[in-house]
């Protein structure tokens, strides 16, 4: 549907949404959100086969599950701009009586969200269940999921990773956001995880690496590659190397902006680095 320029324009607008959302309520998680802006834009606008509108069961369409729910700002922005709800609703992020809770939930009925996430490590199991439901329904569409790299420290992931290969759940593409950062520091400082690629391969997954995870064309190419590997008896993992805080220079390459909002001055700098493209909400 889109050419690269359109997608890149959307990325810049999504960055502005993220910054403005977290700034307004002085809370939320801009770092990981910015790092995944290109991925979300590519996924929802180019990669996934989506139906118009939203229903929970999502029959005959690709589905997405966000496991690291704290990057809700990028999720909400991309959902709104993909037409799931009015972009003005981004104004309500984290406010009382909002459907845009701090972490995504089905509880308030926000279109586009199929599971609550926030408590880490649960999303892959849910995605696998949805993938198996698709198989039972003879629905050939795919399940996509996104997980943080630090999140892999949660043990439930490894139950799910083991299960997926054992049960040949080959209609899932689970992407790991390899930004190398978590709340307390770099993943290497907090709890080094060794070779994530080696671990997934040892568990029986096909692994695709996207070295430039903030480059739209690299994402499109890598995800097309991943898609071509589905249906072959093995689950597919994409290792997406991203830069936390991407697109806002002072937020990049650090864990400092994991869960911290910019002040007025910082917001102005961030927005100046990302001039309005499609229109602010």
């Amino acid at each position, binding site marked *: 549907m889109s050419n690269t320029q359109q997608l890149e324009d959307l990325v810049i607008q999504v960055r502005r949404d993220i910054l403005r959302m977290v700034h307004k309520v002085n809370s939320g998680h801009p770092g990981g959100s910015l790092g995944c802006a290109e991925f979300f834009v590519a996924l929802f606008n180019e990669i996934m086969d989506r139906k118009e509108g939203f229903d929970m069961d999502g029959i005959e369409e690709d589905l997405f599950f966000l496991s690291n729910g704290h990057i809700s700002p990028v999720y909400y922005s991309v959902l709104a701009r993909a037409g799931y709800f009015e972009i003005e609703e981004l104004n309500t992020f984290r406010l009382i009586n909002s459907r845009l809770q701090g972490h995504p939930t*089905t509880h308030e009925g926000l279109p586009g969200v199929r599971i609550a996430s926030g408590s880490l490590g649960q999303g892959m*199991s849910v995605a696998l269940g949805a993938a198996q439901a698709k198989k039972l329904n003879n629905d050939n569409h795919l399940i996509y999921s996104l997980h943080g790299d630090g999140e892999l420290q949660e043990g439930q992931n490894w139950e799910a990773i083991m299960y997926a290969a*054992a049960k040949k759940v080959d209609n899932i593409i689970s992407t790991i956001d390899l930004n190398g950062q978590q709340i307390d520091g770099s993943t290497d400082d907090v709890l080094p995880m060794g070779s994530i690629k080696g671990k997934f391969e040892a568990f029986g997954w096909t692994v695709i690496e996207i070295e430039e995870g903030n480059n739209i064309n690299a994402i499109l190419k890598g995800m097309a590659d991943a898609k071509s590997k589905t249906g072959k008896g093995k689950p597919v993992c994409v290792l997406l190397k991203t830069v936390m805080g991407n697109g806002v220079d002072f937020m990049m390459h650090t864990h400092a902006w994991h869960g911290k909002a910019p002040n007025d001055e910082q917001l102005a700098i961030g927005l100046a680095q990302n001039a309005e493209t499609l229109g602010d909400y």
Partner: protein
Amino acid sequence: MKTYTNTGNKDTRSGFGAGLTELGKTNENVVALCADLIGSLKMDDFKKNHPERFFQVGIAEANMIGIAAGLTIGGKIPFTGTFANFSTGRVYDQIRQSVAYSDKNVKICASHAGLTLGEDGATHQILEDIGLMKMLPGMTVINPCDYNQTKAATIAIAEHHGPVYLRFGRPSVANFTPENQKFEIGKALHLIDGTDVTIVATGHLVWEALEAAKTLNEKGVSAEVINIHTIKPLDDKAILDSVTKTRCIVTAEEHNYLGGLGESVARVLAQHKPTPQEFVATNDTFGESGTPAQLMDKYGLNSAAIVKAVEKVMKRK
């Protein structure tokens, strides 16, 4: 006084298995998951008859709950099976976020609840599960009394949209409810009419309550016995109507008195009709190894304990 006949001891987990077998035939959306306890949960038939709808997840309960939540997306009705301990405490956060908060139509089916799984001891004897589950917003909590009722409850919960915790057990216990009696979630069953005391019981303690009523009748005490198979939502009206008549109540359950049926009943009474109440339940303790009968005796969970509690509560009227 109305009396009930035990048609032969049977384990409630087999009632679950039979109900699941029935659902396999009647509802194609029902799927089942098990964490390496197919035999213990009596899920063999369902697995054999519907291998494509059965998911062996291995010893990975957290993953099982998540997969179950995911299977609902696409219209499936997942029944998860493992021991009560591993169905609740071990996976509380998974149930809380991926099932309850996400409003997923998952049926968490838990065997070997309470002390009476016996010799395995306290690591496996959860006495806190009703409390854990009833505290979750939107969760329905059901603890049927015998084989027939467990089978009926298993079938009934497939028709109810929303998360359910279904609790049953390992030992063979009296089977006395009518075969094929319709199971209505949240509707208490009046078993014996009485005027002096109300006994509300859940699980296999219902049979003990019936036995206690017989003993009490011989002593000239008229006990009303109510089977509370659904702890949440609780049938407040049935309890209040009964205590209006009897003016005292004993609750009986195989669970800690903190967080169980008794506490739910106390809440209803405190809000609407303060009434003397005694608790037949475990007293904030872990269990231990032993036979079911020995454990019920030692921890005060049998008809004798109920009779004693009735005598105590009647003096407080």
